[in-house]
């Protein structure tokens, strides 16, 4: 089958690739671009571990074909830290102990980032609603919610 030429930006850097038409964005990120922060868990769009932000919208990268994101701006977990300094969300997840096994964490943080980008100061209810898009099998969610709230208040203080 013919490959398709796709170009997009990942974490601010341009990438032009020849991909298979049936390749998912998650496969492209992990296997071609070596961005292995996004995880594959269910592979069916249910768990959210593969969440990346495409043009500011959180997306399950296991459900997206790479040709679909031609021309888009993609942010992955690897693109959050700037000049060796972690993103406030990453700091908050560490401070609040919102990470146990860590497999869901990159997806959780990308979902939280999209939430804080569209709503700077979400209520607790809004945080819970947005974060319920992702599944964590360790933490019980309480500390994740706390971490997102902490990051949102910290952002305001800056």
């Amino acid at each position, binding site marked *: 089958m*013919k490959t398709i030429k796709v170009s997009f930006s990942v974490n601010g850097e341009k990438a032009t690739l020849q991909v298979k*038409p*049936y390749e998912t964005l998650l496969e492209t990120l992990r296997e071609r671009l070596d961005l292995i922060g996004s995880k594959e868990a269910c592979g069916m769009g249910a768990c959210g571990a593969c969440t990346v932000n495409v043009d500011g919208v959180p997306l*399950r990268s296991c459900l997206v*074909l790479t040709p*679909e994101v031609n021309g888009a701006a993609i942010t992955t977990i690897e693109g959050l830290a700037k000049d060796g300094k972690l993103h406030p969300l990453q700091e908050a997840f560490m401070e609040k102990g919102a990470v146990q096994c860590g497999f869901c964490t990159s997806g959780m943080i990308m979902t939280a980032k999209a939430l804080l980008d569209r709503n700077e100061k979400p209520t607790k209810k809004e945080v819970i609603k947005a974060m319920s*898009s*992702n599944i964590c099998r360790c933490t019980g969610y309480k500390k994740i919610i706390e971490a997102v709230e902490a990051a949102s208040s910290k952002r305001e203080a800056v």
Partner: protein
Amino acid sequence: MILPKFDYKKAEDIASAIALYESSKGQARYLAGGTDLIPLVKLRLSTPVAIIDLKGIKQLKTISREGGHLLIGANVTLFELKNHAMVKEYFPALHESLDATSCETLQMRGTIGGNLLQNTRCLLYNKSLAWRKARGFCYKMGGETCNVVPKAKACFSNYCSANALSLLSLSAGVKIAGPKGERKIKLEKIFSGDGRNPFTLKPGEILTEIHIPLKRSRGAYEKLRVRNSIDYPLLGVAVSVSNKKGRVCVGGIGPAPLIYDLKDLEGAYIKDPAQKARQEAKPVSNTTLSPAYRKKMVDVLTQRAIKRALKEGK
């Protein structure tokens, strides 16, 4: 899970999408949000030779008012529609069902057209190829039997769109474009009632637009689910009332929704559609909850939805 091989084509407009479909000799599938289609392809429940991406068609992304109707393009995402001022103000049942659909991230990807045309589901159908081969193929997979109800003549897979119920309660219609031109039909006409092939759309046809009569309504949507996020409804009830007339729609049980008119809005009559729905709903053991419980809940949720619809907006 790795996808099987297929070709990817992007359509610029509806005519070119249909032309692409015809050039694939009926072996293609249309792709909108992909939240239903991609898992089906991953499980080898759908094996298209080509996928035709409709997301580039601008015409399908608009919401407008025309001739007493709200026209919604099929590619409007569930999240956009949920936050649309007119949906909140005029169609509370639709607002509630959109909010209850899956989770926010998938609402931002899934489209209203795709949500209406999602395939029916069954505990023994939405499984990997290896699992299904071990069990033997059922009617819906092209086999000669039902794996849930032995010796049954029909397929009992469940139609799980919450938004179809609320749109039906609002008497919505749809516009369909295909190789033989365009047609407008009532939403209830898209259901065939056969779980194997649940829609009446012909090969190559695209649902392009949903139109809802622009009347202020009161309404509610009730969903039976085991989690409060991501999961499909195990039963759903939508009610909309305007000008002293109402419509009750029950879904998530069987391949097509059940529709009842709410003729009288006084106390005792509320029980009528609830009891009728309970009698007519035929749940089988193809979800994570027992059929007896789901049947009982038809009555409970229908009454609850009607009461809430009548109470709110008063």
